[in-house]
């Protein structure tokens, strides 16, 4: 049993050694653009699209072969005059919504897009409304001397730890 474990562990290390581990290679593909606006457009597009195979990287930053291919395809589509939406749809058609870092707006993602806003507004409304109701009703106990004394004693005991 111990021998098996050691063999497995060595095997694991061998596999590790042969896998190309994480790299920080800047993915710098150079394309020629007619105008800086075009270049900016390409940049934005590739920054909002995901490499289908990497560990959470945009097409712009990924050096994987598939990313290079996709960037080349986007460049071609751009030179054919396709719009941003058409280019995104083109890729989604082939790779699914996974490649979009900006999730689509559909019945499922309504929760995502509007959830926080709805949560904030509804909670704020409820809290403020309850607060308003509480402060509109007169306080149950009008402070008397006894209550005030009690408060003072409490205050003192609050400042000294038990």
């Amino acid at each position, binding site marked *: 049993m111990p021998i098996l474990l050691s063999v497995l562990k060595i095997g694991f290390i061998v596999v590790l050694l042969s896998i190309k581990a994480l*790299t920080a290679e800047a993915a710098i593909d150079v394309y020629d653009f007619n105008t800086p606006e075009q270049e900016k457009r390409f940049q934005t597009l590739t920054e909002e699209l995901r490499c289908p195979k990497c*560990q*959470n990287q945009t097409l712009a930053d990924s050096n994987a072969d598939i990313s290079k291919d996709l960037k080349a395809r986007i460049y071609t589509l751009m030179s054919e005059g396709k719009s941003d939406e058409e280019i995104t749809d083109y890729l989604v058609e082939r790779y699914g919504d996974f490649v979009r870092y900006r999730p*689509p707006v559909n019945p499922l993602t309504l929760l995502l897009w509007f959830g926080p806003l709805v949560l*904030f507004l509804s*909670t704020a409304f409820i809290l403020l409304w309850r607060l308003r109701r509480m402060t509109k009703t007169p306080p149950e106990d009008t402070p008397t001397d006894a209550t005030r004394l009690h408060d003072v004693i409490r205050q003192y005991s609050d400042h000294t730890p038990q």
Partner: protein
Amino acid sequence: MLAEVGHFSLIIALSVALLQATLPLWGAHRNYTLWMAVARPAALVQFLFVVLAFVSLIALFLQNDFTVSYVAMQSNSHLPYWYKISAVWGGHEGSLLLWVLILAGWSAAVAVFSSTLPLDAVSRILAVMGWISIGFLLFILLTSNPFDRLLPNFPLDGNDLNPLLQDVGLIIHPPTLYMGYVGFSVVFAFSIAGLLSGQLDSAWARWSRPWTLIAWCFLTVGIALGSWWAYYELGWGGWWFWDPVENASVMPWLSGTALLHALSVTEKRKVFKAWTVMLAIITFSLSLLGTFLVRSGVLTSVHAFANDPERGLFILGFLAIVVGGSLTLFAFRASLFQVQGRYQLLSRETLLMLGNLLLMVATFAVLLGTLFPLISDALNFGKLSVGPPYFNLVFTPLAFAALLLMGAAPFIQWKKQEISSLIFSLRWQALLAVVLGIAVPWLYFDRIYWQVVLATGFSVWLAISMLKDLKNKTCHGTHFFAGLAALSRSYKGMILAHSGIAVLVIGACYTSFYSTEMNVRLQTNDSVTINEFRYVWLGVKTRQEQNYIATVGQVDVYRGDSLFARLYPEKRVYTVRQNVMTEAAIDGSLMRDLYVAMGDSFDDGAWALRISHKPFVRWVWLGALISALGGGLALTDRRFRLQRAASSAAAEGGAPGLKVNA
């Protein structure tokens, strides 16, 4: 031998933790002083043995002991010694040991610095922390033991530390981050202790605050360091990606910020008690959730450790017990919470409540976005991704709203504020905010964006409010600086901390909208111009280092006709793993960074380069640091020290505990 020492120390630490978690808890319940007295020594002894284990692991790395599997995976004999030490926490097992070390450290700190706390409180607090230690120690011993051996067949040399991690960032970022994450366990333990004993009064809030504040400061710095490290190390020039692991660290930060403010209100005004306790539970739960997300393999991330669903299951089980248990306790102790103070609709209490709500909605948004791919997959709607476009869109208005509230706060009184006098106080502030919000970006840059206008406007709003408030508070007779010195450090800390946030928002906004980036192909002596800088590419040289070979490029940067800077971007090939790494060259200054990274070379000798001009990017980290400094300053407030001195005298006298309900 050393590995066995380390392993055995962990087992002893676990046994001690078991004692720490059980005896004092029962002792507090039944008032057995002897059992309660176990708490402090147990925490200290546990810390001792965890330190022993940790030091053993460091020694194993320094000795190049590749019979130990973890050392073989993470290290190499050619690694410089400072990286051998930091490689200890470069992988899953070692970083967990660091977690446990820091947790034991915080427990020991609580044991030492709690002389003003009654014994039953200390017992419960340390017992809770003991339970958390048990969980993590078990996790290490059962699934992730760094001391496992590889005998009899072990490699002659190790696998080397991932080159991305061979950087000073690894030395400081994880320890700082963990100090924050784990530090929230203290206020969590305080809350559980309070729920168990029924004593959740102002004193409880006051005692919890410094511990929470220290953890918060560390977490702020830790996150900022991580962002800074990614910026210069990863070669793509970004500083935040809303990656799941990054989000795992920012969620406890947001919640922790809300907690800090809620604690302050609970202490001063005796309201929000239930909310504060729940926030303490939530914040630490988010820390634990972060640990789960990073190590379980359910989400994809460049930063994740080796993914193992079996380990994930253990952590999930642990989460169920800790979080589920504490939330159940919370629900059952609902009767403890009765509202004491009263306040009007327009009051500082309401303002802080709204601020808390903002922070928690932000936390919710980040959590939702991070987990949404899992939700979509679980409901069989397929796989989708949620990235920066979503998070930026949702987060930005929340940040602006926070600035708005921060800037109005000084002029809204506790309990009740007249709306007419509020509007009167704020009129100039509002006007200047609008005017400068448009004018500043317009004058500084050639184009304006509404997000930048808003960011500038809200920051101006906040800045003016602080100046005005300072003036109001120091105008009583004496000299300004004397007045300034007289202000409490707590208040000055708050000013700094809030300013830091404004600085951060400005930096984030401006750099996002006004950065210019170009991917170019240059032959030797070719140049390219961005804004007022001309970058001339001068070819490459080779350089051999201890464990890598570098191809070093040279870029001369001219402003006008004079040489402004000389940049040396690199491409490195690390000899053991054969990784290729890009080291960007950065000329950094307060107002802008010049960023150059090398790509690949072409057949004709030309090189691909990415050249970026990033205005205000340093304001992001500067802002975070200023905030952390503000927190640190507030920590040194006399109130905390005086209270300790006075209370220790009272505690000696042993006044019987007044069970004050809520």
